[in-house]
């Protein structure tokens, strides 16, 4: 690679378990690449991808699963934690509830630290910050010495009430840092979140991830002359220094790229459906990225603003079986990558992929770019064994496809209807945007069931997240706890905001290029006495009436009523600074070499409305712009297939996105041809 090649500005690199995807723009043309990932050293995937780019760009925008995997496989640490005396077990007890209501052996989350890695210290204030107990120098030194000797590579600190009154905790953190020379993570520096379990758990996670992410960032930095920025779960590219200050911000980095890519399509209202081999992520975008502070990873809380993505265990590998009551069921168990679906030929079980193969929705030579040879006979055998329960092959195919649509639709409802947003209102209709390997197999039917009219299957849907990374803003966020009523805190908000802006401005200074930093101020608010908060965005002018109005609007939208007369409390103020990526207009797709006749590359025997039909198969790369194609049909490309059922029409727009219009009325029953209205 030639270091001097720097005409490429930005490359988006999305590391996944199987593939590392890349997207960049060269001379105004969108380019993408897909290379195999290296499970043991993910940086190898990054560098072999960069070889395809042909040089180092100015900025590498990276989405990584290194943090996620360190948590899932528990190979972070070693690290230690110091907490207020009497509360050593807080990380283990959590919120006290069990995961599964009905189990003879109730289970809970599995914390990242062991009990012997947690130390108690006599430091404690009341809720107002008045010290009740403070450690002497000797006590601190003894604890620091034991931790140092234990081989811990990072230390987390959790002191009661530190979100409201950070000084005691941060002084202790400073002292420990000075004595041990280790990275120290004070819970109050990571989140202004006044609940000890969630905040301490976050501190423990950051300490636990610090060694492994530190090594990863170093190894990229040593070999890559580009500037590296990392996708945070909140949907902003983060400079490495900020990642090392709070490594937990990267643990849900993967799905964030997809949501950003949907945002970059410029659709006002979109439901994103990212279906892969084992799971499906859904997100609702209405202008801005939806955010939550109640995300979890592996049962552990992540009380940081995180793009609100709902995940269900339905994917191509979901296992098809009959349950003990004789009912056909799909997932959530998955055949995974190994043995994989029966058609992979490794002795795998009957899965959704097998069903789609037999139902004619998968054209084998186009599956995963044609690199995976599918064995139809194995699918027939696996499904055939299920037929011994007295159900015909056709009934199983139809039933499982309906189950898949129902469970995907259920996930979509959960992020829309269940949150007070009706996506099918005629004057505020949402568009369904499927991506990932399997999203477009069911998207049109899901959209119809949701009462939607349009599906957009974007160009390069197979490397869609990398495009999102490439176009993402560089961002930083910080926050401060307020925990007072609007009335009592309103005076202090502008000053707090200005201080936070200075703080973020410093960390983003070096990235200020042609574009300035845009700041957004948000407040976490609730009625006094409630636990959960709503995030409201405020403008430059901050006053009581405006805050009350925006809070009440958000509250009514979400919960349908107001608790008038009850005091509104501001829990925290938060600033996000954002440097927008240079806006890239993708080039139009070439019209030369595209023609309708050649694009029709074959036929498939398709299950449709409870019978078999022959349907055409089109190669997406050969379809001309703006020519309508009616369902039933399959539109295939290297890493995705779009299924068009009856009563839908698709055309490619000039940017190469497949736009599907649903022509039938919003009749959710059409998927199985029954209609009984009460």
């Amino acid at each position, binding site marked *: 690679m030639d270091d001097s090649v720097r005409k490429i500005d930005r490359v988006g690199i999305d590391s996944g378990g199987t593939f590392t995807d890349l997207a960049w723009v060269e001379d105004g043309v969108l380019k993408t690449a897909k290379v195999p990932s290296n499970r043991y050293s993910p940086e190898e995937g990054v560098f072999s991808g960069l070889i395809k780019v042909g040089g180092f760009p100015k900025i590498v925008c990276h989405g990584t699963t290194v943090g996620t995997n360190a948590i899932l496989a528990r190979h972070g640490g070693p690290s230690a934690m110091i907490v207020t*005396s*009497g*509360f*050593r*077990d*807080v990380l*283990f*007890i959590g*919120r*006290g*509830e*069990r995961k*599964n*209501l*009905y*189990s*003879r*052996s*109730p*289970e*809970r989350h599995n914390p990242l630290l062991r009990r012997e890695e947690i130390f108690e210290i006599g430091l404690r204030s*009341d*809720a107002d910050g008045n010290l009740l107990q403070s450690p002497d120098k000797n006590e601190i030194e003894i604890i620091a010495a034991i931790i140092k000797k234990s081989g811990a590579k990072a230390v987390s600190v959790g002191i*009661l*009430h530190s*979100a*409201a009154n950070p000084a005691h905790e941060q002084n202790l953190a400073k002292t420990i840092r000075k004595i041990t020379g280790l990275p120290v993570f004070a819970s109050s520096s990571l989140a202004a979140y*006044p*609940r*000890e*379990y969630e905040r301490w758990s976050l501190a423990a996670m950051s300490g636990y991830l610090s060694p492994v992410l530190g090594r990863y960032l170093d190894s990229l930095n040593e070999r890559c002359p580009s500037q590296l920025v990392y996708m945070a779960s909140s949907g902003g590219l983060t400079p490495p220094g900020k990642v090392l200050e709070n490594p937990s911000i990267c643990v849900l980095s993967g799905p964030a790229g997809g949501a950003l890519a949907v945002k970059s399509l410029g659709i006002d209202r979109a439901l994103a459906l990212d279906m892969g081999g084992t799971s499906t992520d859904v997100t609702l975008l209405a202008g801005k990225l939806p955010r939550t502070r109640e995300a979890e990873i592996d049962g552990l809380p992540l009380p940081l603003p995180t793009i609100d993505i709902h995940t269900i265990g339905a994917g191509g590998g979901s296992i098809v079986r009959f*349950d*003990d*009551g*004789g*009912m056909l*069921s799909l997932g959530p168990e998955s055949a995974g990558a190994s043995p994989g679906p029966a058609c992979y030929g490794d002795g795998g079980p009957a899965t959704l992929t097998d069903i789609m193969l037999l139902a004619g929705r998968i054209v084998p030579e186009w599956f995963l770019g044609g690199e995976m040879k599918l064995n139809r006979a194995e699918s027939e055998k696996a499904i055939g064994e299920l037929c011994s329960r007295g159900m015909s092959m056709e009934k199983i195919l139809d039933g499982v496809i309906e189950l898949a649509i129902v469970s995907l639709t259920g996930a979509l409802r959960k992020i829309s*209807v269940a949150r007070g947003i009706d996506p099918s209102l005629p004057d505020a209709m949402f568009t369904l945007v499927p991506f990932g390997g399997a999203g477009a197999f069911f998207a049109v039917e899901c959209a119809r069931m949701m009462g939607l009219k349009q599906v957009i299957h974007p160009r390069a849907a197979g490397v869609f997240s990398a495009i999102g990374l490439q176009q993402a803003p560089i961002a930083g966020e910080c926050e401060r706890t307020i*925990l007072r009523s609007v009335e009592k805190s309103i005076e202090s908000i502008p000053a707090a905001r200005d201080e936070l802006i200075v703080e973020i401005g410093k960390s983003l200074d070096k990235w200020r290029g042609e574009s300035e930093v845009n700041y957004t101020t948000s407040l976490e608010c609730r*009625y006094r*006495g*409630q*636990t959960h908060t709503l995030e409201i965005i405020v403008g430059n002018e901050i006053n009581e009436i405006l805050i009350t109005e925006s809070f009440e609007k958000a509250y009514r939208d979400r*919960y*349908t*009523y*107001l*608790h008038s*007369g*009850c005091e509104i409390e501001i829990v925290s103020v938060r600033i996000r600074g954002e440097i927008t990526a240079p806006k890239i207009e993708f080039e139009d797709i070439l019209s030369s070499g595209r023609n309708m006749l050649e694009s029709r590359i074959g036929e498939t025997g398709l299950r449709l409305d409870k019978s078999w039909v022959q349907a055409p198969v089109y190669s997406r790369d050969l379809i001309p712009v703006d020519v309508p194609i009616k369902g039933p049909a399959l539109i295939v490309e290297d890493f995705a297939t779009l299924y068009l059922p009856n009563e839908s029409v698709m055309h490619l727009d000039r940017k190469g996105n497949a736009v599907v219009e649903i022509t039938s009325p919003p009749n*959710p*029953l059409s998927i199985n041809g*029954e*209609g*009984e*209205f*009460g």
Partner: protein
Amino acid sequence: MDMSIRRSSRFSGRWLRLSYHSDVGGIAPGSLPLSSRLEDEGIVIPPMLVVSGGKVVDNVVERLADASRQPDERRGDLLAQISSGMVGLKRLDELARNRGLDRIKRESSGLIEHSERILLSFLEKQANGTGSGITFMEAIPDEPGAEIHCRVTLTHNPTHLVFNFTNSSDQHPGCLNAVPSIVNSAVLYTLRLFLPPDTPITSGLLNPVTIKLREGSVLNPGKGAAVAGGNVETSQAITETLLIALGELGWDVPASSQGTMNNILLGNLPDSEFSYSFYETIGGGAGACSDRPGAAGIQTHMTNTRNTPVEAIERTMPLRIRSYGFRTGSGGSGKMPGGDGIIREFEILYPTRLTILSHHRIKGPDGIAGGNPGAPGRNIIIRDGLETELPSRVMIDLQIGDILRIETPGGGGYGVRY
């Protein structure tokens, strides 16, 4: 305290919302007192219309809220409950429009039959027989305990499971009485433990089941009986009894779990200037299973409420939490040990009335297959350095500076440890 808001929608569907309101009046803060009559436990609400013609009926929310020591909090919760009912109705209407009434009816009965088939397919693999279990809910000074007795019989052709509770104690003079719906839900819960994870809970699970209760007993009390402890403590004792009986029948049951919810209610004394009310349940040890140890410090069986963060308690209540941790060594030993209980210490910062409803303070939860019992729980008041142990159920006034220390029971162990 539960109040249901029902509304029939355009088709013959019904949306029912059960909410637990933390204070509805009565003789003690939190409304779970050591009562002897229903009236002591707060407002008794006859069936009444809350929403009519899409509008909340005048004064109804105020009337219910004003019965509480925290009318503002109640008002908010009632509004939330009503709103959820409205949303539920809307969804039912949509469902009826989109899927059609006949189809919904067909699918609903299909679901009910489906869960029944799952239960039958499990029961058919179990041998005929009978088993019985007894749990003695502890007596306290001036009040007897209660005996929960269950004899379970499984017969085949057709498969039929009978739970006979008729030998349980007479109606309790205190608040331990449980209404029949609590027995039903304990039976449903317990059966569901043996079924696959995705089994839907429907009335189909009770089709092959008969539950026998005796009128005038602790599990089927007369009108006006005190029931504050029924849902929160007796329900745990019923579950414990059921698991012991099913174990005798040869099913693979866990050892007894903490068998209580450790209901702690704290609030101001009558006529004091400052008003507060705090209610929580505390986790404890889970009983061990044949293949795995019991979890420590966790909510078991008939409750799964989350704890309140210490930082939230101390910011809004005149209470200080001094410690919150595992009660090491309290789980019963065995080949698989029971889970440890929890120790939680409250310092009282304002004159307070305390109510405790708990169980297993004298005898710990049983082990099984040779495993040892878990340690019994303890309710302790520390005043001026002196410890006083309180009984399982108690109502007492506390002073500033008093420390309330709750040690929850450990779970029973499974099998002999060699």
